[in-house]
Each structure stands twice: as C-alpha cells, then as structure tokens.
C-alpha cells in the first residue's frame, strides 16, 4: 500500500501555528472588565494551613456580599518548596493568576520585570516594610506579612541540660551567641538537637542570615553589585557557624534532622508565624529575640507581598479586592498569622488579640522592635540562580576540615559574574 507523503512544510506550519497559539495564550489578560458574567479571581498562596485559608475565605466571602460582580475568589495553595517555580510556570503557560503571594527573595525579580501592576500606597504602611516592593516611588505589592525572626525555646530541654533559660539571660543582659551556643551544646550532649536554623538543612544557606547579621555580615552589598561572602564579617560569622556545627556540636550536623516543634531540639530560629505549630506542644516553650552578636543587637525580618499580576484577566477587580483584603479591619484579622506592616497596628494590644499564644513582652521585643529595626531577608534580581550557585559553592564548607576563608572566596568567584549582570 502506497501512503501519501507527509510534507515537512505542513508539519512546520503546524508547529509554528501551535507556537503562535501558545504565545498568544501567554499574553494573558489585559484587564478587560467588560466581559459578561461574574468575575472570578484567583490568588496563588504557599500556605496550605487550614486556618490561613479559612480566614482568607472568610474575608473573600465578606467582599463578595458587597460586590455582586465578583463570582468566585479562589486561593490556590502551591507547596513552598516549588512555589516560585510553579508560579512562573503558570505565568509562562498563560495560566496567569490575578493575584500572587510573592516571597521577599524574588521581590526584585517581580518588581523590576514589570510583571506586577502598581497599587495604591497607604500612608499607614511602615516605610521599612515597603522598600522591597517599590520602584520609582511606586508600590507594586502589599507587604502583608512582615515577620521578624525570633528564637523559640524548649525550656524543658534547656533546664534539663542545666543551663539558664534564654529568657533569664535576656533579663540578665547576657543573651549572646556565645551563650546560645553553650546552651545548644549542652542539650546536644543529651542526644537532642541544640540550635536549629529553620529551613536551612545545609542547603537553604540564606536562612543563615538569622545568624550572620549578628556579625554585621551581608551576602552582597546594598546595591547588589559586590560580593560580601569574602568580607571579614562574613568569614567570621561562617567560621562561628562551622565551629558551632563541627567543634562545639551545638547545631545538628548535615544530614541530621531534629524537629523543634516535635520536641527534638532546644531552640529554633524562625519566623513568629510558626508559633501556631506550638498550639498543642507537649513541652514548655518560650520566644525570645535573636541573641546579641559581635556587632550588637540585631533583627532580621522575613516578608511576603501580595501583588496583582499585570497579565491577569481582571487587573482592576484584583486591585480592588487586594485593597479590601489588606484594609485596616482585615489586616487586624490577618495579624494573627502575619504581622502587619501598618504602624497603627504594631501595638501589643492589637497583636496580643491576634496572637493569644504569645505574651505582650514577647510581642514587643520580638515583633514590634524587630520590625522597626530589622533588616529584610536577602533578595536580588536573578535570585534563584544566585541561590543555587551559592548553595553549590558552600557545600564544601559543611565538612569538619573545611577551609572557611577559601570556600568564601570561591563563592565570590562564582557569583561575581551574576552580581555584575
């Protein structure tokens, strides 16, 4: 049987047509609100916490009551580990959400690329909370979660190890990294973990900013052009961390998992929004500020913003919903999980109502003082590539006999071309 010949030109045309269709799909919406029918809004979030989503749904339901033009408001949860990758893949595939929760590390990528629509800036927002989300004086995302890092302490383990509790040391003015390391080492001798850095796992190196900021170190200069890993402050901080792991044995080593929230470690350095995990804790716990480092007292703040995607289908409707979602009243509700960026709400009264697990003194010292004086966590344009490159170059550091200075110089050699871009 003789088959008709398939022409290559026909196939090429099909491929190109499909490509053009795909590209047309990538174009996304243009803020066309005139389309008939109710407007459905979709927001991507990384939290899958049922309490978070219940609150979001409650706010959305209240909004819909007064806005009959709005159909469904969906909060689509994407796992944290792949959050930004999944979000950008959705955008690339033309499935652009109307709103997105954006992590602070990728804020410069989203803001400078022009992916986000500008939004109104409320005068109540603390200036330190909006810096990451602004360009040319215009705000591109609402910094709805501004969460300082603190130290959660398992006081049962600390006391059993014969050490004064961190709260006692804070009161005595002796809460320093030397003391935190001594406490961590004492607890690790019992077989439990000492100091755990949340989300670090010897891969997420940027989580170490909760330590190195105490040495006055930064991964790169303020303008993002000069590498800071080979600077004396960073080398000293990394030497201290290396010693903490391999010599003092105050921090669980690479490949060892100790879950603080399951009662397996003395301390964890993490954001206060994790307090919800301690609701049913079977041990006594406390929250204290980060220990004083050689550079003095310091605070580090993690952030997340909510932005309106410019190529979403309903830009104006999304902006209106965002304004409602983060207004005074709803911001106060959200404060139980996400410390607000509003000056008027950064009081122990407001925060205590929303955070019954935390004492007013903890809220003042860790949250309010932390937000006001804290450095926002590391970010940079092209952050994912920088993150991976630094991770690969830092791997040789996590061995007992590592040459810290040489490793740090190696990191700079690799990331300098990326910083110069």
């Amino acid at each position: 049987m003789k088959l008709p010949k398939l022409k290559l030109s026909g196939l090429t045309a099909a491929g190109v047509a499909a490509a053009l269709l795909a590209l047309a799909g990538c174009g996304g919406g243009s803020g066309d609100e005139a389309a008939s029918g109710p407007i459905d809004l979709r927001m991507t979030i990384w939290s899958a916490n049922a309490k978070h989503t219940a609150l979001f749904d409650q706010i959305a339901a209240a909004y819909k009551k007064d806005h009959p033009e709005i159909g469904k408001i969906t909060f689509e949860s994407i796992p944290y580990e792949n959050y930004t990758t999944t979000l950008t893949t959705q955008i690339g595939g033309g499935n652009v959400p109307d709103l997105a929760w954006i992590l602070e590390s990728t804020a410069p990528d989203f803001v400078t690329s022009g992916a986000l629509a500008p939004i109104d800036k409320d005068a109540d927002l603390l200036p330190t909370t909006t810096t990451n989300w602004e360009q040319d004086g215009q705000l591109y995302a609402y910094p709805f979660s501004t969460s300082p890092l603190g130290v959660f302490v398992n006081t049962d383990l600390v006391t059993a190890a014969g050490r004064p509790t961190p709260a006692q040391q804070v009161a005595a003015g002796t809460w320093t990294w030397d003391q935190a390391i001594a406490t961590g080492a004492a607890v690790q001798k019992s077989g439990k973990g000492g100091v755990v850095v949340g989300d670090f796992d010897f891969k997420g190196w940027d989580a170490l900013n909760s330590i190195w900021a105490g040495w006055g170190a930064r991964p790169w200069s303020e303008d993002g052009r000069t590498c800071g890993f080979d600077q004396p402050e960073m080398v000293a901080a990394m030497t201290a961390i290396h010693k903490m792991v391999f010599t003092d044995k105050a921090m669980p080593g690479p490949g060892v998992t100790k879950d603080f929230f399951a009662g397996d470690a003395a301390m964890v350095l993490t954001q206060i929004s994790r307090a919800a995990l301690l609701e049913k804790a079977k041990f006594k716990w406390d929250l204290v500020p980060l220990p004083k480092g050689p550079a003095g007292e310091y605070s580090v703040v993690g952030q997340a913003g909510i932005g309106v995607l410019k190529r979403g289908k309903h830009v104006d409707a999304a902006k209106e919903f965002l304004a409602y979602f983060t207004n005074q009243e709803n911001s106060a509700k959200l404060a139980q999980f996400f410390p607000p960026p509003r000056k008027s709400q950064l009081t122990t009264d407001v925060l205590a109502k929303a955070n019954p697990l935390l004492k007013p003194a903890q809220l003042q010292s860790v949250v309010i003082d932390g937000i006001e004086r804290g450095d926002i966590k590391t970010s940079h344009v092209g952050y994912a590539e920088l993150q991976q490159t630094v991770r690969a170059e830092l791997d040789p550091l996590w061995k007992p006999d590592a040459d810290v200075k040489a490793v740090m110089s190696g990191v700079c050699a690799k990331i300098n071309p990326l910083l110069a871009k």
Partner: protein
Amino acid sequence: MTLLADKPAAVADTGPRRAPYWTMRRRDELAGWLMVAPQLAGIVAFVIVPLGLVVWYSLHEWNVLAGTFDFVGGANYEQLASDPRLGPALRATGIFSAGLVVLNLSLALFLAVLLNQKLRGTVVFRTLFFSPVVVTLVAWTIVWGFLLQDNGGVNAFLDLLGIDGPNWLRGSTTAMISVIVVQLFKGVGLNMVLFLAALQGVPAELYEAARIDGASAWARFRQVTLPLISPTILLTSILTIVGSLQVFAQIAVLTQGGPGTSTTVLVYYLYQQAFQFHHFGYGATLSLLLFVIVLALTVLQWRMRKRWVFHES
C-alpha cells in the same frame, strides 16, 4: 449528420472510460489511514509539535515575568558551546548512566537466572523484586531520603554490623552512588521480568544437547542462554540507557544536584535553567542537546545489534 444528431445521449457521451475513484486499493488505503489516525494525531500533537516548539523556543529569549519573547537566533547555541556548567553536567550524566546501566542489567539478569530455577518460593521473590516498579517514584525516593540520612536507617543498620557509615547524601561520590542505587532498586524488577520471560523461552532441548556435549554450566550460559536472550538484552539496554539519561525526580528529591554540582545531571540542569532561573530559551536548547544524545545512542545501539544480537524475530 442526422444519424449523429439522433443518437441517444448516453451513447453520444461515450469517451475513454473513467475508472471509479473508490477502488478497493483506495478504500484499503483510507481504512489504513483511519486506523492509524488516532495514533498519528497523538504523535503529531504530543511529539512533533512539542519538538517543533522546543526548536522554536531555543531561538528565543523568553522572559516569563516580563512577558517578552525576543528572537535571538543562535545565541542560545553559542551559550551552550561556552557554558562552563555543561561539562560537569554531562560528566555527572555519563557517570550516572554508566553506573546504572551496568548494575541494572547485571543484577536483573542475575536475579532472573536465579528465579528461573525450579525452586520453592520463587514467586514470592519475583513479587518482592518487582514491587518497587509499581511504587510511586517520588514516594520511593522520599523514603530512601530518610534512610540515607546521617542518622538514618542505612547507617543504623551498618552500625549494627560495627561499620561507621558515611553521610551518604553529603559526599560527592557517595551521593552519586546513593542516587544510582535508589534508581537501581526502583527499576531492576522490570528488566528482571523481561529477562525471566526471555529465559523461559529458551528451548530446554538446547541445554540438554549442550549437557550431552559436556558443556559446563558457565559454557551453557555463555553459549546457549546469552545468544538466545540477546534481543531482550538489546531491548533492556536501550530502555535502561534512555531512562537513565532522563533521571530527574531522584535528583530533585535526594540531592538537588549537590553536593556542589556532583549530581547535577543534564535533565536537572535544564530544569534549573528553564524553570528555576527562567532561562526558557536556553533550557529548550539544553533539551535539544539531550534529544540528540538520546537519539545518537539509540541509533548506535540499533546499528550495533547485528554484531551481538543472535537472532531477531
């Protein structure tokens, strides 16, 4: 003239006779096309069009966030030629593939020969070795991730034997060995079953004849078994090599390409470039490189079959 004018119309139109269009041959041809149409449509939609799109994307710089799609010609191919990270990625891919293919085929054949014996309990062992094939890949890898931790199950077992186990996923060599072994145990059952089927197809009289001729067990295996199962060896080697070049989930879950870049194989590297660093055009170029490598290796194996495949049915 009158005669012609009076002639009935049917007779007047008679010229050279046209053959009917729908001949038996044409009907068969159409039926053939209709039967393969669904498969053909699938190949066009899911193989040829995506392949065309990948080529198209490789000629562009696609900034997903900004929404720009700019033609850059051969710039991505120039980057490919000068990319310092490509060499280590290809080396890691080669080490992984070589290690996996050799271990997988050897172990699968060894297990198949053992399970081909008429002994009690072989059904249980066949099920045991085949069961990882049907387990979800990511779940399998996550469990192994826990087992391979410094304070995990593997080192606890070694500790019972008085051996101080290494930190498996943190050393360059041990991380690669770990990834290979995890994939080996996941996939060896499939090749084992294929080998087992091939072994059961070897005529018993050939073994009998060889035995009468005084051939030892090893000689029977080398000169009777291996030649007769060589088509299956070809099939399994192609499948295993192609599969090994496409390894991704194990790397993503267990090592994320580390420590350093020791386990950053080509697929993981192209995933990083495209989906993490948002260099979609360059990612497409890397995927074309992978396609060319897979194609070249498969063609090479297929051509070499005449040298070592004993017979083909």
